[in-house]
């Protein structure tokens, strides 16, 4: 049984992410851990700016406890109705990010909305909270657009690096139920003559986990890959790795995954060592 972590920031109620967890539960039973975390992480704000700047706007929720009580009741009802095993953590601490990190260490997967995660801080995703979480949590993260479904095809982004292989392995271990779905192991290269890195070895590995596997080498810029190629697939999920802070931020600055997150287009599974 997979233990899935879902965070509720302040008064937010991630209805669409819950719907998605319901879908996953039909695939194989899950234990949903709902963690209510404060809307603003004061410690984080302090460290970012060396003090809370005068211009920083910290939204106030009139009565957070009341909102949380209401949301918690809604969640209970939703889970009962759809027979989802769940636990609710309402023992909120002052620091959101450290408590999310702690929860994530003991979870199999963290699901978060690619639009709403701490949107009160900055609604241009990925915002600093999301970047921080993506780079520091110890379990894989599934970023979800507003309407997500179970995958019709799986896109395994591969560039020959240890981190891309790591992500593919983690995805395969977590979702053995998806092994029959068409999987495309994609190597995107800007150069015509660049060979597919370690094609035989990676096929040997991925072939054990995905029954309908296709190796695809695409000569196109990443932008076209994300906008044309992926969107042409049926309900695609993208599986990608990231390695340490520098590589992750490089990916973001090149608008590699960031474009996907901003466009709220498809679910993105990110795992890093």
């Amino acid at each position, binding site marked *: 049984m997979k233990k899935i972590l879902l965070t509720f920031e302040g008064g937010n109620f991630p209805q669409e992410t819950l719907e998605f967890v319901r879908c996953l539960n039909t695939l194989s039973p899950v234990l949903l851990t709902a963690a209510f975390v404060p809307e603003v992480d004061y410690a984080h704000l302090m460290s970012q700016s060396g003090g809370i700047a005068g211009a920083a706007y910290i939204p106030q929720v009139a009565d957070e406890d009341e909102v949380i009580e209401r949301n918690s009741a809604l969640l209970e009802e939703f889970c009962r109705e759809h027979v989802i095993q769940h636990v609710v953590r309402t023992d909120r601490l002052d620091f959101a990010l450290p408590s999310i990190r702690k929860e994530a*260490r003991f979870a199999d997967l963290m699901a978060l909305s690619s639009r709403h995660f701490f949107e009160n801080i900055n609604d241009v995703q990925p915002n600093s909270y999301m970047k921080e979480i993506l780079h520091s949590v110890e379990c894989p993260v599934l970023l979800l657009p507003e309407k997500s479904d179970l995958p019709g095809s799986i896109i395994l982004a591969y560039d020959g690096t*240890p981190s891309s*292989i790591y992500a593919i392995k983690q995805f395969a271990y977590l979702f053995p139920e998806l092994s029959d779905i068409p999987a495309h192991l994609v190597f995107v290269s800007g150069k015509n003559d660049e060979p597919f890195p370690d094609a035989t070895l990676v096929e040997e590995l991925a072939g054990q986990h995905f029954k309908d596997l296709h190796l695809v080498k695409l000569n196109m810029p990443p932008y076209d890959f994300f906008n044309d190629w992926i969107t042409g697939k049926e309900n695609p999920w993208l599986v990608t790795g990231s390695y340490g802070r520098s590589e992750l931020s490089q990916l973001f600055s090149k608008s590699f995954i960031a474009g996907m997150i901003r466009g709220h287009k498809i679910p993105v599974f990110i795992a890093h060592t």
Partner: protein
Amino acid sequence: MEKILLALDPQNMNMNTIDFACYLSRLTCSRLTGVFLEDLLAGERPVIRTLEGASYLDSRVVPDSPEGEEKRGITEENIRSFKVACDCRGVQTLVHRDRGVPATEIVEESRFADVIVVDAETSFTKRNELLPGRFIKDVLVDSECPVIIAPYSFDSIDDIIFSYNGEKSSVFAIRQFTYLFPELRPKKAIVVSVRNDGEEALEEQFKMKEWMRNHYDEVEYVVLKGEPSDQLFGFLLEKKNGIVVMGAYGRDMLSRFFKPSHARLIIKTVNLPIFIAHC
């Protein structure tokens, strides 16, 4: 189905290790890939050769020299016995022949594997090394997938012993083992933690137990007091038919756990497979 690699010294193959690797392959319905690591820089006894009147020491084995010929013969023979042994145990095989520096070769293969099985005594050197040798240590530190050190002899797995200290790497190892071998869920899981100071944070214990309950049917928690590696060793001594799962807490922790006085004892006396993963 997983990609399981078995690292083999083509000059010195251990049937017990093959037996254990076949058990894992059958358990997970996987094919077993035998990686024959042919050491090109073999530490053979150097011989004096003469070239254009000048003598020099040569420690290489030239492929067409009688020594090279003999080595090749042994390798071919061992590959044949490996295939036959796996066939008899109903396991499909694949053979990779890697020539170069053995530890480097297997680390490169590890990126594209789910788990590597090694024999603790594999060393690729004629020197009398303390167990585990340099090869095993290098593989443990650099491998990009979990490593299982095969036991000296093997019957079955009835218990899974998780060594847990609340840190990132021990949780990582527990998770990786669980994902790789979901078939072992009905077995008894024993979570052993060793404390030499105060109590573990209650909150963390609670989260850990919640996770374990979700993945194993029967879980037992054991808390030992004292120096971690001594206590763990003492506990493992009494165990039979189990597998030990531990995180590699970086090179330091590994070398402390495998300190010369212990390692030989653990590998020879404890006789349990040891699963090591690091993040």
